[in-house]
C-alpha cells in the first residue's frame, strides 16, 4: 500500500533537512494558535501534516507561505536561518504553496494561468510560443492529462484544475511544495491522479508537505506524518511502522476517543447480540468483530 523506502533512508543518512522549523509560536490576539512547533522537511520526501480542525495546520502553512510570519521561533532553509515576511519572500526562497481554493483565473487559458504574474516576454510582448512550449514540457513531466493548454481553465475537471495549480507552483523549481488539502473536493479517479502527482513530485526531488484530513491519502503517499493537536506537536510517525490507530490517537489526543469508542461500541453490540443468540460458537463472534473493526478503520 505504501512505498516508504526513501524517507526512512533519507532520515537514516542524517541528511540535513531543506526546511527546518524550530519553536514556532503564533498568537492571534488572545488565541495561541501555534505553540513551540517543530517541523522538518527533507528533499524527496512527503510529509503529511495532520490534525483536527483548529489544530493549527493552516496557520503553520501560512507561516511557511509568508502569509502570517511567526511571533517566535526560527526557520532554517537550506542550512541558513531565514525570515519569511511575505508570500513573495517565501516563493523566492523556493517554497511553493498550493492553497485549497486553487486561485485560478477561469477566464484565462492553461498557459496564462501557469505563467500568471511571471509571464515570459520577448521585446516587451508576451512570448506565447515559449510559454506554451514550456507548459507542455512541464505538464508532460508530471504526466498530466490536460487535453489542451489553450482552453479556458473553466472547462477542466477538478483534478485537472488541481494539476494546473500544482504545475504552476513548480515553475520556479521550488525545493518545497506545500499542498493544502489537494484532494478535498475530488472524485476517486481525480484523487488518484493527484496522489500520483504527489509521488512524482517526490521522485523529482521536491520536499512535499501534504495537508490532509483523509487518512487513506496520507497512508498512500506520505513517508512521515507530523501530527498537530491544539497548536502543539503531538508526535511524528514513520508511516511504515505506524498503525492507523496510533495516528488517530495522536490527532484526537488519546486512545480513548470518539473514533475508537465507536469501533469498540460496535464490537460489543455485535458480541452481545451474538451471545444472546441460542447457538453459541465462541470463535465466530470474535472473528466477525475483528473484521468489522477493521472495516471501520478503513
Amino acid at each position: 500500500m505504501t512505498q516508504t523506502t526513501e524517507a526512512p533512508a533519507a532520515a537514516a543518512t542524517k541528511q540535513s533537512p531543506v526546511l527546518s522549523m524550530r519553536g514556532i509560536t503564533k498568537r492571534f490576539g488572545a488565541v495561541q494558535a501555534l505553540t513551540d512547533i517543530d517541523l522538518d522537511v527533507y528533499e524527496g520526501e512527503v510529509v503529511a501534516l495532520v490534525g483536527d480542525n483548529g489544530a493549527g495546520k493552516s496557520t503553520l502553512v501560512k507561516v511557511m507561505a509568508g502569509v502570517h510570519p511567526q511571533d517566535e521561533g526560527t526557520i532554517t532553509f537550506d542550512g541558513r536561518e531565514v525570515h519569511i515576511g511575505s508570500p513573495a519572500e517565501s516563493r523566492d526562497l523556493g517554497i511553493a504553496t498550493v492553497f485549497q481554493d486553487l486561485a485560478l483565473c477561469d477566464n484565462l487559458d492553461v498557459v496564462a494561468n501557469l505563467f500568471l504574474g511571471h509571464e515570459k516576454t520577448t521585446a516587451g510582448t508576451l512570448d506565447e510560443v515559449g510559454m506554451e512550449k514550456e507548459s507542455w514540457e512541464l505538464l508532460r513531466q508530471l504526466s498530466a492529462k490536460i487535453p489542451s493548454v489553450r482552453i479556458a481553465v473553466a472547462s477542466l475537471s477538478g483534478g485537472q484544475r488541481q494539476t494546473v495549480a500544482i504545475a504552476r507552483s513548480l515553475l520556479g523549481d521550488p525545493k518545497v511544495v506545500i499542498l493544502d488539502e489537494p484532494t478535498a473536493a475530488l472524485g476517486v479517479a481525480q484523487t488518484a491522479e493527484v496522489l500520483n502527482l504527489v509521488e512524482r513530485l517526490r521522485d523529482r526531488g521536491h520536499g512535499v508537505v501534504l495537508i490532509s484530513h483523509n487518512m487513506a491519502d496520507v497512508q498512500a503517499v506520505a513517508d512521515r506524518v507530523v501530527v498537530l493537536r491544539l497548536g502543539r506537536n503531538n508526535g511524528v510517525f514513520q508511516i511504515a511502522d505506524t498503525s492507523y490507530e496510533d495516528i488517530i490517537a495522536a490527532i484526537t489526543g488519546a486512545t480513548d476517543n470518539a473514533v475508537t469508542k465507536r469501533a469498540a461500541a460496535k464490537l460489543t453490540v455485535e458480541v452481545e447480540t451474538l451471545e444472546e443468540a441460542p447457538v453459541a460458537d465462541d470463535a465466530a463472534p470474535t472473528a466477525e468483530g475483528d473484521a468489522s473493526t477493521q472495516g471501520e478503520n478503513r
Partner: protein
Amino acid sequence: MTTTPTQEVTTSSVAADLQDERLLQAHGVGGRFRAELARIRTGDLGSLPVAVGLIVIWIVFQSLNSNFLSPNNLVNLLLQSAAVGTISVGIVLVLLLGEIDLSVGSVSGVAAAILAVGFVNKGWPLGLAILLAILAGTVIGLFYGVLYTRFGVPSFVITLAGLLGFLGLQLWVLGKEGSINIDFNSWIVRFCQQMFVSPAVSYGIVVVVALVYAGAALQRRRQRGAAGLSTASIAEIVVRAALLAVVLGVVVWYLNSGEGRQQGRGVGYMVVLFVAIVVVMNLVLRRSRWGRSVYAVGGNVEAARRAGISVNRVYVTVFALCSTFAAVGGVLAAGRLASANQASGGADTNLNAIAAAVIGGTSLFGGRGSAYSALLGILVIQSIASGLALLSLDSSVRYMITGAVLLIAVIIDSISRRSRQSAGRA
C-alpha cells in the same frame, strides 16, 4: 510540417499540443468551421451577436431610406462615431475589470472646456491646450484609482460623484459665457471635420495592414514550428490576409466612391485615429503583461493577487487610462463641433459610450471582451441615430430604440454567460 526541426523528431511527428487523443481536433477548413459553430453554440459568442445586429439594422434602415448606406452618409456616420467611440475604448477597459466609470461624459466635457478656454480665451498654443486637456483626464482617472484602491469605495459610487463633480468643474471652467467657439481654421477643427485621407494613401494603409498581418502570422508560424507546436497552414494565413485586404479595400473604396470625394471627403483622419486606438489597445490587452493582468484581475482578483500581480496598480492604471480616453474623446468632440459649451459631454454621451462597450460584446461581469467591441458597439449606436435622423424621427424614438438594443445586448451577455458556465467555457 515539411520543415521538421530537431526537437520535433525526438517527441513524435504530431505537434506537442495536439497529442492528447481526447482533444477535439479540427482538420481542414470544414473542421475549422464546425469547431467555430460548436464554440458559438456553447455560448462563446464573441462579437457575433453585434455583427449580426449591425447587418440587420443596416438592412432595415436601407429598406426604409435608400440614402442610409450611401457613401456620404457612411462617411458622416464614421466621423460621428469617432469621439464617443474613443471614450468607449476606456469603458471597455474598466468593464474588463468588472468595474464601471459613469463619469466619462463629464470628464470629456471638462477636457473640451479646458481646450476651448485655454486655446481661445487664454491664447495658449493649440498643442499645449490639447495636452493639458488630456492630462486633466489622466489626473482625474488617477484620483479615481487612488480612491478605489485606498478606500475600497465601489467604482459605481466614486464615478457617480465624479459625474456631478466634474460637470460642475466643466461649467466653472467655461465661466459665464457657457459656450466658446473654436476657430474653424484651427488644426483641431480641421482634423476633426475636414481632413480626409487621400485615396492613394488610404489604399496604401490597407495594403500595409494586410502585409503586417500576414508577416506577423508567418513569424508566429515559424516560431511555433521551431518550438514543435502545431502551426497554421500557409494557405490559411494567405487566405486570411487576402480576406482582410479585400474587406478593408472594399470598405475604403466604397467610402471613397461618394460624390463628396470631389470635395475631398472620404476616410477621415479622426476615424483613422480612432481605429488605430482600438487596434493598439487590442494589441496591448492581448500581447502585454499589463493586458494579461487586466484580464486576470477581471477574472479572479484573489488569484491575480496571489500570483504576484500588483492588483492596485492595475486598477489605478485602468481608471487613469479610461479617463484619459474620455478626455481624448472630449477633445475630438469639441473639434467636431468647433465649440465647447455647457452641453459638451452631456446628454447621452455617457450612456452611449457605456452602451457601445456592452453592445459590442464586452461583458459587464469582467474578464471578457476586447477593444474591438468599442468599434462595433459605437457603429451600432450611431447607425441607429443616423438612420432615425434620415427618417426625420426625433430623439425620443432614438432613445427608446437605443435603450432597447442595450437591453438586448445585456440579456445576450447574461444568457451566454450562463450557457458558457454549463458548457465549461466560462
